[in-house]
């Protein structure tokens, strides 16, 4: 789960990393109290998941009360629900620093660069030699000599150097103890008087560690659409797109391949939905979610490993009887019990196809109004 900037900064602050003074303001309330506390100039930062907020105009620098009100209305008018009002800081230098995972040699990877403010992908593409890398092997801790090495390479001195060593050790502790996939501060600001302040924060917690990381629950703001949010709460993998062929497929790998095939044959996908694994008995819910994005046709492709074809077919029959979808449904449900699946689907007049490409082609033709 990706945290919002303000949540990341709360974690930083609790752990002793300096962040700018700030107040969180919700859409619909007044910004006055916040600006009274923070003073001017200050920055209005939209708490949204998308990257590139600066370029998208979702971060606004304001100097006066009237300007603050105007920009606040502008941002909430664009649908932003939560805004972080933050003190403007005196920037002498900007640094990039992040901790992530190296899956090849099983280490925790620290990346740092003097080119703060730039995004790391851009940096890796244009100036890879400017990225400082330090690795911590699994079963090892980050040692002080390693943090010193990073700070020397960043060219920090005096107070900033000492703060940097402490900051990196703290980031590492947070990374391990919160099961993070990424902890990033970009930019880490060196102020005019030589102190370090985390001006931004990115924090991604591993979804698989949910059983031991229960501080954060899913919120609507983390998803691109209502349906994605509701499906996630139900534990059904679902992604919404803008095409007209609704997918109900089993297994992530097969679903991805079907997504590609629909595009290959000139169709467009309305949604990605995995109706397999632990969800293979939940055809009714799966079809309900699939219907919500108003597809012109539903394409059901499975080639079961654990999931039995006959059970899935029966689920589809039940779902069709209950939901009465007014759109055509194409099925290719294969795997254990597939002969039985053919018979079950025939009871509601469905011809279960055996070839994946035939099924995709048929769905694409139906979506275009053909037969």
């Amino acid at each position, binding site marked *: 789960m990706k945290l919002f900037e303000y949540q990341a900064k709360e974690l930083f602050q609790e752990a002793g990393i300096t962040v700018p003074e700030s107040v969180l303001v919700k859409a619909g309330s007044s910004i006055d109290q916040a600006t009274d506390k923070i003073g001017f100039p200050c920055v209005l930062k939209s708490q949204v998941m998308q990257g590139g907020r600066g370029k998208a105009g979702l971060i606004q620098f304001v100097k006066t009360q009237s300007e603050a009100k105007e920009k606040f209305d502008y941002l909430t008018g664009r649908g932003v629900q939560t805004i972080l009002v933050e003190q403007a800081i005196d920037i002498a230098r900007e640094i990039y620093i992040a901790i992530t995972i190296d899956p090849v040699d099983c280490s925790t990877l620290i990346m740092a660069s003097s080119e703060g403010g730039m995004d790391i992908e851009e940096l890796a593409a244009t100036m890879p030699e400017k990225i400082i890398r330090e690795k911590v092997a699994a079963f090892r801790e980050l040692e002080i000599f390693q943090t010193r090495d990073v700070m020397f390479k960043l060219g920090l001195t005096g107070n900033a150097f000492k703060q940097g060593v402490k900051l990196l050790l703290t980031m590492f502790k947070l990374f391990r103890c919160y*099961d993070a996939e990424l902890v990033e501060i970009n930019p880490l600001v060196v102020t005019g008087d030589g102190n370090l302040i985390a001006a931004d924060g990115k924090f991604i917690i591993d979804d698989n560690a949910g059983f031991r990381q229960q501080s954060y629950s899913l919120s609507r703001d983390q998803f691109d659409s209502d349906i994605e949010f509701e499906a996630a709460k139900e534990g059904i993998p679902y*992604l919404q797109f803008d095409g007209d062929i609704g997918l109900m497929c089993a297994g992530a*790998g097969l679903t*991805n*391949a079907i997504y590609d095939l629909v595009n290959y044959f000139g169709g467009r996908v309305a949604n990605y939905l995995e109706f397999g694994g632990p969800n293979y008995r939940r055809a009714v819910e799966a079809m309900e979610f699939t219907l919500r994005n108003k597809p012109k046709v539903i394409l059901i492709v499975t080639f079961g490993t654990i999931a039995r074809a006959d059970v899935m077919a029966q689920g589809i029959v039940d779902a069709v009887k209950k939901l009465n979808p007014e759109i055509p449904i194409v099925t290719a449900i294969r795997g254990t019990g597939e002969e039985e699946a053919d018979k079950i689907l025939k009871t509601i007049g469905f011809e279960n196809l055996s070839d994946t490409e035939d099924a995709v082609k048929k769905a694409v033709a139906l979506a275009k109004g053909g037969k």
Partner: protein
Amino acid sequence: MSIFIEKDTRVLIQGITGSEGSFWTKHILGIGTNVVAGVTPGKKGQKVEGISVYNTVREAVAETQPDASVLFVPPKFAKDAVFEALDAGIRKVVVIAEGIPVHDALQMRKAAMNEKAMVVGGNTSGVITPGVAMMGIFPYWIDRVYKQGNIGIMTRSGSLTNEVTAMVIKAGFGVSSLMGVGGDSVPCTRFAEFLPLYEKDTATQAVVMIGELGGTMEEEVAEAMEAGIFTKPLVAFIGGRTAPVGKKMGHAGAIVSGGQGTVAGKIEALEKAGALVADRPSATGELLKEILKK
């Protein structure tokens, strides 16, 4: 010959008394696997499909000398179960569980490297030598997919494996060793690490790799081919070529981030190294025929 599991490989099943464990034990035995023991803490003395259950892996090892272990344990206990197997001296482990925390997977992979063991998974269907034995959850009775032959298959996906392998069989081939790398972002064994085994294996004439967007495993395979570590023909199918950037497409590892992990990049690297890449599953069989004619 197989690269991981043979007819006489002595197999242990950890988590044998659970619903998944006992269900699949029946099928693991059904294909002909030499299962010697099961382990579930606190269930010593029980039998599952005639197989004796022990409390600990150490006990099972002392009594039955297994060479390999397949784990049917929930993801939060996967690390513990892998360490238990490694500590008891087992050097081949298959982890089926989906949803293992990334930090645990890092330690599992590191521990396996330290012990010179091969841990396969998590989030995998496992490993199968069709017609002989399996450590995993394969519907081996579907004969248009699981047929013996001389094509090695390695895959990041269970469901897509059936789809692609059916095309390999349809083209007249069979499978030597099928290895499920798994769909996680930190698999304990990576594609390229299977290649030296396939290279040595006399039963494997060529390899089909079923890859996916995200990560760098397919690029590592291209590197191994360029370096001459793997010299047999290789055909790949890579899912997610039209997937939107930044969306996690089902599998934890299936995401393009920071310009890394794009299918286009993988295809370019593989083709440059001499592999053929199928643009859809159905093309895999024909490409295999083509590359084996050369």
